[in-house]
């Protein structure tokens, strides 16, 4: 019931701070003419079609030729006109429509039981024929949800000091999707401004029911932040679930202590450390720590390591032998989880009919391309150096002399992203789709043979 709204109705913050660059022939921002060029020369239409066909565009008799045509695309046009339920029967139909309409944003929805553009024809039957039947399992992680734990930026801005929060999210979720849930075909994409999207594309992920999707989202749901409760994470029980324990020891603790503690100066001011002390439900302990830190104002320790010194003091205090009080046991973990654990937009993952922006779109506000992120190298990913529409066109212009048609991608910095998309995601995915189509076809054949001879 919320689908219409959530496609683009999420509260977009106003962005400022478009970067000024010197000697740049192409101005920043989104210009319809540049976008046309991008869709004309660089956007990987064919790859998107290949991907969304999941092997059904082949010649094998087991292929479902209607599959791609039942997928919903939706376009946001220049003047904020929003076209939902677009569908295409072939790669060229998709490509032509994109080139013609030149959408500022392309969203991808579910595969429906029938062609979504003809949904009205089926609506009369009243028997709810028009319903989503397949959809990637998706996750949407947005930096604005972390505003209470980052002091470097707020709202739509990100910088290299807070981006590690996204790195953590990728590491924690990616590992669990693979090791716990057994998924293999996972695509991580930069959302173009301040977050990441995740597409889980295995056959069994696409066929999950809403209830199963909700179960996975809840499995990941640890951070229960809402505006009216101080304690955002509460870890009870005598042990942590293996998933949480692994996330803590392999990712969260390390990032908290080596990166965020100092990059966000989590203990540097009274206001900041009070926020952490609030999470400790023991008055005597917190007042002791507070005393130490207030007196410490003019102490010798340099400003630089004040965060780690105070963190160590807090840990020693909480974990020292005499403090084995119930409820304090997990306090250190709870603090780390509060400041690092991934915060998912739950609703996006729970329902099949949520739309998500397609990879390789241009973010309308930043001009950055929504490029894939390699989860194995996600620590190296730098959102501030992602190619923008402007830089790409500049690169195209620069090589304008030596005209080789197929070479256009390679001339730009997008080439690397597309190569990664193909080799690490698309090819392995299509290989397994093919195998799946063949094996399910063979079982069907076998079954019908059996029933014949019988």
């Amino acid at each position, binding site marked *: 019931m919320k689908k219409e709204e959530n496609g683009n109705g999420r509260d977009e913050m106003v962005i400022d701070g478009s970067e000024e660059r010197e000697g740049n022939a192409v101005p920043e921002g989104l210009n319809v003419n540049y976008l046309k060029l991008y869709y004309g020369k660089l956007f990987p239409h064919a790859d998107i079609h290949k991907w969304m066909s999941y092997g059904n565009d082949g010649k094998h008799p087991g292929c479902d030729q209607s599959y791609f045509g039942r997928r919903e695309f939706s376009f946001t046009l220049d003047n904020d006109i929003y076209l939902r339920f677009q569908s295409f029967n072939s790669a060229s139909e998709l490509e032509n429509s994109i080139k013609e309409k030149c959408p500022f944003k392309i969203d991808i929805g579910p595969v429906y039981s029938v062609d979504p553009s003809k949904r009205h024809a089926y609506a009369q039957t009243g028997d709810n024929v028009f319903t989503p039947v397949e959809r990637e399992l998706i996750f949407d992680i947005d930096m604005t949800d972390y505003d209470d734990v980052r002091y470097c930026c707020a709202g739509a801005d990100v910088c290299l000091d807070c981006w590690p929060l996204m790195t953590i999210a990728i590491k924690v979720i990616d590992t669990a999707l693979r090791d716990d849930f057994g998924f293999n075909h996972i695509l991580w994409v930069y959302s173009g401004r301040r977050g990441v999207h995740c597409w889980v594309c295995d056959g*069994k992920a696409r066929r999950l029911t809403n209830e*199963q999707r909700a179960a996975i989202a809840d499995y990941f749901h640890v951070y229960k932040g809402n505006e*009216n409760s101080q304690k955002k994470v509460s870890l009870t029980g005598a042990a942590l679930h293996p998933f949480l*324990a692994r996330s803590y020891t392999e990712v969260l603790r390390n990032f908290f202590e080596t990166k965020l503690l100092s990059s966000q100066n989590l203990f540097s001011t009274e206001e900041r450390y009070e926020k952490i002390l609030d999470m400790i439900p023991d008055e005597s302990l917190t007042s002791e720590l507070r005393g130490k830190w207030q007196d410490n104002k003019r102490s010798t320790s340099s400003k630089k390591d004040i965060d780690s010194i105070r963190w160590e003091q807090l840990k020693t205090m909480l974990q020292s032998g005499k403090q084995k009080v119930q409820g304090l046991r997990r306090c250190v973990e709870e603090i780390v989880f509060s400041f690092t654990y991934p915060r998912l937009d739950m609703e996006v993952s729970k329902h099949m009919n949520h739309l998500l922006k397609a990879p390789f779109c241009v973010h309308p506000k930043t001009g950055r391309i929504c490029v894939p992120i390699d989860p194995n190298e996600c620590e190296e990913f730098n959102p501030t150096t992602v190619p923008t529409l402007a830089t790409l066109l500049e690169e195209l212009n620069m090589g304008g002399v030596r005209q080789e048609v197929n070479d256009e991608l390679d001339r730009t910095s997008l080439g690397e992203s597309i190569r990664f998309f193909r080799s690490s995601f698309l090819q392995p995915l299509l290989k397994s789709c093919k195998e799946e189509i063949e094996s399910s076809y063979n079982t069907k054949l076998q079954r019908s043979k059996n029933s014949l001879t019988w």
Partner: protein
Amino acid sequence: METVRTQRKPLSKEVVVPTLPLYRSPPSLEVRLEDFELFAIDRLRVLKGISDGLSRGKKHEEMEQLEKDLWNKNMRHPQASEIANKDIISHFVLRLVYCRTEELRKWFLSMETALFRYRFRQESAEAQRALMAEFDLPYKAVGSAEFESLRDKLGQVSRSIGQPLPTADAIFYKVPFEEVPELVAGRRVFLHKGHAYIASNQVVSLVGTQFRSHLSKALILTNRKWTSTVREQEKDRLTPIVEALCTSYLGPDYSQPKGFAEISVKDINELARSSFPLCMRHLFEKLKEDHHLKHGGRMQLGLFLKGVGLKLDDALMFWKAEFSQKVSAERFDKEYAYGIRHNYGREGKRTDYTPYSCQKIILSTPGVGDHHGCPYRHFSDENLRAALSKMGVNSRAVEDVMDKVRNRHYQLACTLTFEAVHASSCDSGINHPNQYFSDSQKLLQPKSTQF
């Protein structure tokens, strides 16, 4: 039920006959028309009782007792031999009654599954295994080598959910995680490469899911049969009974404002102060303060206001007046007006959406920046105390409310708040924010305006 078991003498010691049927095929016996109706009403009492218990947030043990009492009270039969038949007949009659709309199917599915799970847990271990076999589940117990290699992890999970450590002879089943969504959601199982390792006392989740999905499919088929042939064939006999049965027991859904005339925008402030439950009051105040609410809040408050009697045009005016202090009128029309019209069934699917019930609100998961949800569940202690005293609840009553909250009786907490604010008792309890509103209005409005 005991008698049934003794009547059918087990052939050998190994064969255990569970008293719990899976309702795979309709009974092929003759039923007297009056039994048809009476049995169904008795079962409906059980299901309705379960539904009430759940919406009151009863705890697991309380539900267990409730289900036991309901079953024993309603599903008796003077002839012991008829008990099993009554069980099966009543189930199939209610299938006919509750197959006819999505809403009815959903309710019936939830309640029958809850009942099935309760009854499954009452069965002996052997009977449980026999039922599992009847479902034809291909899952084998985890072998001892695999068990040993995973024992640490399984132990870790047990400790994390406060269960005793698995013993050396504990039985675990390895099943696809998709089969046990509720165990996955609660992190109550160890997951590895797509498999969930479930302990023998968790098998009920697995069979419960199976039961539910079988019944769900069966209801769709029954619906098809009903609309295509049965309704017409039985129009003088069963159809009237079936159609009368379902309406009598489901509570009002508050999709149409009842009892009170429309309200207008100028009254909202006053009504919010006097008759809104805390969840709506809070959203309302935040809206006035921030001139904005996120999606979840807009839905929860918007549908409530619709149920209270705010007409679409007034709703648009009301939201626009608030939002336009922060966003341009143009942006409001473009981004938010659609959602409001959608709630009133004028856009998209054109469904006239019903206001959220307490159960739905309690189960929601407000995130960063969200103000929706149930304050009794989602507020911290201090914030809740502050909010209650702001509503004018005296400190002694606040303690009573907090006590209910600690025991996770959120709706009882809300009921106590109602009673404190109105200085009047509320025997029916609060099950729906719109019920809170209408009960409040009944008390506040002078008798003469009521009919």
